[in-house]
C-alpha cells in the first residue's frame, strides 16, 4: 500500500522536475506579484511594511491555487486517473500522494523565497523564523484546499469551476491567521496562538481533504 503511494509520489515529482519551468513558475510568479505590487502602490517604507504581510500571504495563496489547478485535469484527460482509481491502494491515499508531491514542489520553495520578499517589504529580520513557521503550517492546508477545489472542478467540467471557487472562502481563516502571525512577529510578540490555529487547520485539512477530493474524482469519472 505504502509503496503505491511512494511510486505515485516519485512519478509526480519526476513529472514536475521534467517540466521544471512549471515548477519554477509559481515562485517567480510569487516574486513578481510581490514586486509589482509596490510598483502599483505608493512606494513608502512605512506603508510597505504595513501591507507586507498581506501581500506575502495573498501571493502564497494565489500561487498555490494556480499550481494546483491542473492537479487532476491532466490525469483525467490522459486516462491515468482511471488507472489510479483501479490502483491497489485506497483512492484517498493516492490523492494524498499527489497533493504531497505538489506541495513539495510548490510549497517548499515558497518557504525559501518568502523571507527574501519579506525583507524587500522591510519586515524585521527577527520575524522571519515565525513567518517561515507560519507558512510551513499554512501551505499544506492551502494545497489540500486547492486540491479539493480541483477535484470538484474536474467532476463538474460542464458545471465548471464554480464549486472550486467555493473553496476560496475557506482559505480565509488560513489567510487571517497567517497574516496575524506575521504581524505579531513583526511587532516582536508571541505568535503561539495563530500558529496553533494554523496547525489544527492543517491537521483537519490533511485528514479530511484527500477523502473529499477522492470521492469527487471518483464520481467525476463514473
Amino acid at each position, binding site marked *: *500500500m505504502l*509503496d*503505491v503511494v511512494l*511510486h*505515485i509520489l516519485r*512519478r509526480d515529482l*519526476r*513529472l514536475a522536475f*521534467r*517540466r521544471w519551468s512549471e515548477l519554477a513558475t509559481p515562485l517567480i510568479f510569487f516574486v513578481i506579484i510581490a514586486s509589482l505590487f509596490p510598483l502599483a502602490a505608493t512606494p513608502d517604507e512605512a506603508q510597505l511594511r504595513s501591507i507586507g504581510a498581506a501581500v506575502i500571504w495573498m501571493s502564497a495563496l494565489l500561487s498555490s491555487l494556480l499550481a494546483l489547478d491542473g492537479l487532476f485535469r491532466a490525469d483525467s*484527460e*490522459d*486516462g*491515468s486517473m*482511471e*488507472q489510479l*482509481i*483501479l*490502483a*491497489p*491502494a*485506497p483512492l484517498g491515499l493516492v490523492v494524498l500522494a499527489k497533493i504531497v508531491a505538489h506541495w513539495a514542489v510548490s510549497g517548499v520553495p515558497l518557504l525559501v523565497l518568502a523571507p527574501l520578499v519579506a525583507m524587500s517589504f522591510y519586515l524585521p529580520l527577527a520575524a522571519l523564523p515565525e513567518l517561515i513557521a507560519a507558512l510551513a503550517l499554512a501551505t499544506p492546508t492551502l494545497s489540500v484546499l486547492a486540491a479539493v477545489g480541483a477535484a470538484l472542478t474536474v467532476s463538474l467540467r460542464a458545471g465548471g469551476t464554480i464549486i472550486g471557487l467555493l473553496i476560496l472562502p475557506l482559505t480565509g481563516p488560513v489567510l487571517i491567521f497567517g497574516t496575524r502571525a506575521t504581524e505579531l512577529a513583526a511587532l516582536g510578540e508571541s505568535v503561539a496562538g495563530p500558529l496553533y490555529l494554523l496547525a489544527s487547520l492543517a491537521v483537519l485539512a490533511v485528514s479530511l481533504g484527500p477523502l473529499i477530493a477522492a470521492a469527487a474524482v471518483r464520481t467525476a*469519472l*463514473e
Partner: protein
Amino acid sequence: MASATHGDHFGACPVLTVTSLEVRRGGIGLLRDLSFELSPGQTALVTGANGSGKTSLLRVLAGLAVPAAGRIDWHGKTPHRLPPEDRGDIAYLGHRDGLKRELTVDENLRFCRSFWKGRGAVEPLIAELRLEACRHRYVRRLSAGQRRRVALACLRLKPARLWLLDEPLTNLDARGTDVVIEWLGRHAAEGGVAVVSTHRPQRLATAASIEVAL
C-alpha cells in the same frame, strides 16, 4: 495449446459471472438483462454498433462505474467494491491510454511495472512491439499507433488475470494486431480471462471463445 483458448483445460468453473446486468449512462438505459460467464482461459468478444454500450460495459466490469441493476461476480467479489489489494487482478485499457505525455516510453513502462508489482522485464516487450527506436522519446512525440503499443505494453506488465480491453486494435498496424492476438492467446493459455470490445470481430475470431453482441 490451441484448445486452451476455448477454456476446456481448466474445467467449466466460471470465474467471471455477469447476471442480468443493467447499465445506464447519463440517464439513458444502455444494457438490460445482460448475462454471460467466463471460465479460466476464455475470452469474450463484445461487439455492437457505435454507441451500443461496449465501453460502458467494460467500465462497469472494471469497477469504474456502478451498474443500475444485476450482479457481477469476479472470484466471488463485485468489481466496484473490490478491496484495494485485489485490484491488481483486473487490467483495464480504455479508449484513452493512461500514459504520461511528459515521460518517456521507458519511464512510463517502468512506472507501470513497479506500480502494479509486475513481473517480467521491459526489454523483450519493447522489442516485441518494435518500440526500440522511440524507447527514450517522450510519449507526447509518438505517433498514434506507437502510443497504443506502449499502452498495450503497460497492460502486459500488470500481472492481472482479467483483461478488459476496449478496442485494442485501434490505430495499430497489421503487425501490432498480430501481437495483440498472440497475447490474447497466451493469456488464455495461462488461464487468464479477457473481455475485448471490437468492431473487427473477424480479425479477433481466432482468439475468442464467446461473443457478446450488444
